[in-house]
């Protein structure tokens, strides 16, 4: 049951053929059986989940359906303020972040009927693309133990891939939704900057932070985005643009859709198995009717520099007190990255922010005048081992982090919607992700392309060998 897409389970609950109690118990049983080795959760709130499931079941029997997620168990990266639960942000402190109110994203999903299972593991402070966490236990890749999960929303991807939750929320500052989605073989969506409120979510770097779902299918992600998106008085950056019907948009065929394949940067140094899988995925989109063409993109390296400056300064500001008062409480690579921010001046920071505005203004007409969607790999390599990513000095570890996220970070700098969809496996059986990027606020087209590919390719039906 926990293998099925969220949208199917939700339809069964609404139709009265599946009880929220049965579904919640199935998730909790799976967590009890698997999570000691997978380490997806930081806090499992079994008692309140059971209580909420009983309430939802009673409501359903009376014909009262709260919304499209009625009785669906979800879980949240431990960066979200969830009513009644501590938020460690992956630090060794049990309660690092205390928000004024529950995260808007969590409240919106709860209002749609969702049940909260608990909070999910992550890279410390969401600052790390591999997803490991020495304080909370390293999440394990469900496809192959001992390999990284991708991060920083590592627990979110593991929980979805392993069937511990029907979907999860993550955050993405440089790839932190898409990297774990790709490495764990699930769908991950970073929406447009401003599409989803970030209120009640601990920032890492507010100029680059995005809230978004990890799910089993693109349709699930579309359903969740429709509930999450929209203005929020608690987040001034949340756009007032109307929210499309993302699920309805999936029905539009991809015939004639212009898919651009970057000529530069996005294939440099990429593993052969990843190149082969992603090229084949793009070819399949072509066979489905999309028009595939190559495109030379503006040099992304300056975008990555811009993102580096913004991320380092803002994260240093957010966590300045922790870095100064308890530096040894932080993992060495996390501390090293935070400390960089203190060495960058205000003028350089503002020049980077000004540059970002100009680069974005130039990029949009240049690229989206030619194509509707861009397609490329999400990660340059299949998930490496935990041992491999930790080898060497702190400097070597941090440089390895930069290379791992080099294909996702430009899209945070530009604030564009970016989706990772499973597109095959390496010879060692590790998942590979196809990354699709669209125009601002055009998640509908990105999701449509991802859905068409996903349904034709069928990788989403595969499950990790856990049972």
């Amino acid at each position, binding site marked *: 049951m926990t293998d099925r897409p969220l949208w199917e389970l939700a339809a069964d609950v609404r139709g009265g053929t599946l009880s929220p109690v049965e579904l919640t118990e199935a998730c909790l049983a799976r967590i009890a059986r698997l999570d000691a080795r997978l380490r997806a959760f930081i806090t499992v709130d079994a008692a309140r989940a059971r209580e909420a499931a009983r309430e939802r079941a009673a409501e359903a029997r009376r014909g009262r359906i709260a919304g499209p997620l009625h009785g669906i168990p979800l879980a949240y990266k431990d960066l979200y303020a969830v009513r009644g639960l501590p938020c460690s942000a992956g630090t060794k402190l049990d309660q690092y972040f205390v928000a004024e109110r529950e995260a808007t994203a969590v409240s919106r999903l709860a209002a749609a009927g969702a049940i909260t299972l608990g909070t999910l593991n992550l890279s410390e402070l969401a600052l790390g693309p591999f997803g490991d966490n020495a304080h909370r236990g390293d999440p394990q890749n469900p496809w192959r133990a001992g390999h990284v999960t991708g991060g920083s929303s590592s627990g979110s991807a593991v929980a979805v891939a392993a069937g511990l939750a029907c979907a999860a929320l993550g955050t993405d500052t440089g790839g932190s939704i898409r990297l774990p989605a790709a490495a764990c073989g699930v769908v991950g969506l970073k929406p447009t900057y401003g599409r989803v409120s970030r209120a009640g979510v601990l920032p890492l770097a507010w100029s680059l932070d995005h809230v978004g779902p990890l799910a089993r299918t693109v349709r699930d992600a579309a359903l969740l985005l429709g509930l999450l998106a929209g203005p929020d008085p608690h987040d001034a950056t949340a756009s007032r643009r109307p929210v499309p019907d993302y699920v309805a948009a999936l029905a539009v065929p991809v015939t004639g859709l212009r898919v651009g394949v970057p000529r530069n940067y996005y294939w440099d140094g990429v593993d052969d198995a990843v190149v082969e899988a992603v090229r084949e995925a793009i070819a399949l989109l072509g066979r489905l009717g999309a028009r595939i063409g190559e495109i030379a993109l503006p040099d992304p390296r300056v975008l990555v520099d811009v993102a580096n400056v913004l991320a380092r300064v803002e994260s240093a500001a957010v966590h300045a007190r922790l870095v100064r008062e308890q530096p040894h409480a932080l993992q060495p690579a996390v501390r090293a990255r935070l400390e960089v921010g203190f060495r960058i001046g205000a003028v350089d920071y*503002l020049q980077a922010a000004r540059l970002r505005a100009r680069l974005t203004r130039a990029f949009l007409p240049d690229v989206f005048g030619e194509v509707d969607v861009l397609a490329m790999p999400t990660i340059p390599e299949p998930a490496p081992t935990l041992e491999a990513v930790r080898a060497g000095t702190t400097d070597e570890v941090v440089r390895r982090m930069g290379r791992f996220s080099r294909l996702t970070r430009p899209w945070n700098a530009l604030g564009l919607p970016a989706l990772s969809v499973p597109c095959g496996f390496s010879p060692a059986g590790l998942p590979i992700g196809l990354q699709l990027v669209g125009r601002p606020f055009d998640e509908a087209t990105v999701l449509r392309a991802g859905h068409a590919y996903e349904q034709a390719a069928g990788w989403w039906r595969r499950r990790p060998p856990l049972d």
Partner: protein
Amino acid sequence: MTDGADRPLAGDVADLLAAIERAAADLGLAEEPARFVAALEAGAPRDDEPGAAT
């Protein structure tokens, strides 16, 4: 390597800031960070396009 993604360390700050300074050399006087969000809003699909609100 000169890849920006490989400049994440304290020892790389000078190179990183030099790259930003070079790229920012010809920024217009009126350029400001808020124009980033304005660019996203302006670049969104028009109402008659497939991604527009329904």
